[in-house]
């Protein structure tokens, strides 16, 4: 069918292969494939190292030039400290000595400007942003946003966030729901930082659960972003169908001490999801809402264990002193260790009124209960 002309030097090898038994033929094929694969891998590693080495050498020459230019033309600009950044005329010609027609050089300059901005803010920070804009480095970031690869998009989002660039909500919002975890996190970060009107709008469109780590990151971003409009999180507690968003909003309500959200949180006590109910009880306890104590005590006996623990903790946090007898009974008669410990801790938190009860319990408690009480009374032990 096909008449393939092989080079003459391969002729003896082909003959050996043809005359060999099938097992040996298979072994020979395997050896050739393995050796070929290994050679390819080595070649690829060498090629990457060579490229990396060339890039490092180029950057080693370029970065000091970039640093000097930024320091000379931006940081030591005579008007840097006195004139508003948008009125300062930067000497862009000096930057033309850099090979800005090359993509890698523009990337290096962008990275360096971002690095400088991580160290300075105020007028100098604004001047660095102005330099970035005037050199049209933002166009590269826009191209990266349109790229198909998620890593490029993440790079662009980080760039936009670092340079405080305004980006249309419709560009970022769909990415806040991306299936890629890193892209999702970067988009949420960027959205909160850059969306001036409704930085929390993505809560409305979130379909994936907010993982615990996402929540930690989001709380850090929200609490460290300046000039952010904090909404009433009761809105999502009431309407969101995403349980993780509701749970996260409960934490935000506590963080921002949003007392107007209390009615929405109290309504959540009727939810069928006992994990959310536990979060709501935790929230009410941390907000120290005394009006809710009676309701918590009344539902106590019908709750699962972790909700009961949260109720006991909430009574300790609210510390109104109205349910000392209830806490005492739970401490003495509960069969679960965690319940007894939480009751004891809450009694200690109520010690402004329960001092006599605690002394009485210390005098009459069983050895195990005494240990629990002493543990809870030790101010150095937090849990």
């Amino acid at each position, binding site marked *: 069918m096909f008449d393939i002309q092989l080079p003459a030097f391969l002729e003896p090898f082909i003959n050996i292969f043809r005359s060999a038994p099938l097992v040996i033929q298979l072994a020979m094929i395997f050896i050739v494939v393995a050796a070929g694969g290994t050679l390819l891998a080595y070649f690829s590693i060498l090629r990457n190292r060579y490229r990396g080495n060339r890039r490092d050498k180029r950057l080693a020459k370029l970065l000091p030039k970039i640093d000097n230019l930024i320091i000379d033309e931006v940081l030591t600009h005579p008007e840097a*400290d006195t004139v508003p950044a948008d009125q300062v005329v930067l000497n862009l010609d000096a930057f033309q000595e850099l090979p800005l027609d090359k993509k890698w050089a523009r990337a290096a300059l962008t990275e360096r400007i971002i690095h400088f901005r991580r160290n300075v803010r*105020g007028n*100098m920070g604004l001047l660095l942003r102005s330099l970035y804009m005037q050199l049209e480095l933002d166009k590269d970031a826009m191209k990266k946003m349109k790229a198909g690869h998620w890593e490029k998009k993440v790079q662009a989002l980080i760039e936009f966030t670092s340079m405080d660039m305004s980006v249309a909500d419709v560009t970022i919002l769909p990415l806040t729901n991306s299936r890629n975890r890193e892209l999702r996190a970067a988009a949420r970060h960027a959205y909160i930082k850059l969306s001036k009107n409704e930085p929390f709008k993505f809560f409305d469109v979130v379909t994936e659960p907010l993982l615990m780590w996402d929540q930690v990151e989001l709380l850090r971003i929200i609490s*460290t972003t300046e000039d952010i409009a904090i909404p009433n999180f009761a809105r999502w507690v009431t309407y969101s169908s995403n349980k993780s968003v509701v749970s996260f909003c409960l934490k935000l309500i506590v963080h921002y001490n949003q007392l107007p959200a209390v009615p929405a949180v109290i309504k959540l006590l009727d939810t069928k999801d006992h994990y959310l109910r536990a979060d709501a009880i935790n929230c009410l306890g941390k907000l120290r809402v005394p009006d809710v104590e009676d309701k918590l005590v009344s539902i106590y006996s019908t709750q699962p264990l972790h909700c009961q623990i949260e109720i006991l903790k909430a009574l300790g946090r609210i510390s109104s002193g109205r349910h000392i007898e209830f806490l005492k009974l739970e401490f003495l008669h509960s069969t679960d260790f965690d319940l007894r410990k939480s009751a004891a801790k809450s009694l200690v938190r109520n010690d402004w009124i329960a001092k006599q009860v605690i002394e009485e319990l210390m005098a009459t408690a069983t050895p195990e209960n005494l240990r629990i009480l002493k543990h809870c009374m030790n101010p150095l032990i937090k849990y």
Partner: protein
Amino acid sequence: MFIHIVYGTNAATMSKILLVEDDEIMPKIVARILPSSEYELDHVSNGKEAFEKLESTQYGYDLIITDIMMPYANGFEILSKVKSQPRPIPVIIVSNAGNEDMVMEGFKLGADDFLKKPIIPAELMIRVKRLLMKNK
């Protein structure tokens, strides 16, 4: 590796400042902020080098500006060592770590000031001047 940046002419009246910072950009920025005619700036890039520099100069600095998170020894270790000397040197912490615990820990160990990165250049300069004046 020590980088010794000496500017100006009158070394006797210049304030000696040790900058402990592992970021490569920050020393350039600090060198720009603090006028070379008034400040003699030494830079080291980790805690170990800071200790060596302090030992070799017999703690002969008027002020230390340090980051917190660095290799070998962190800013808190430098701070506690400096503050245990007979003549404690004023220390300004300049760090990305702005959480409450870190700030409190710094002040508990005797830090004289705390600046969160990114810094406002004029603010750093004023705080440096204030501390130097206070300790003259």
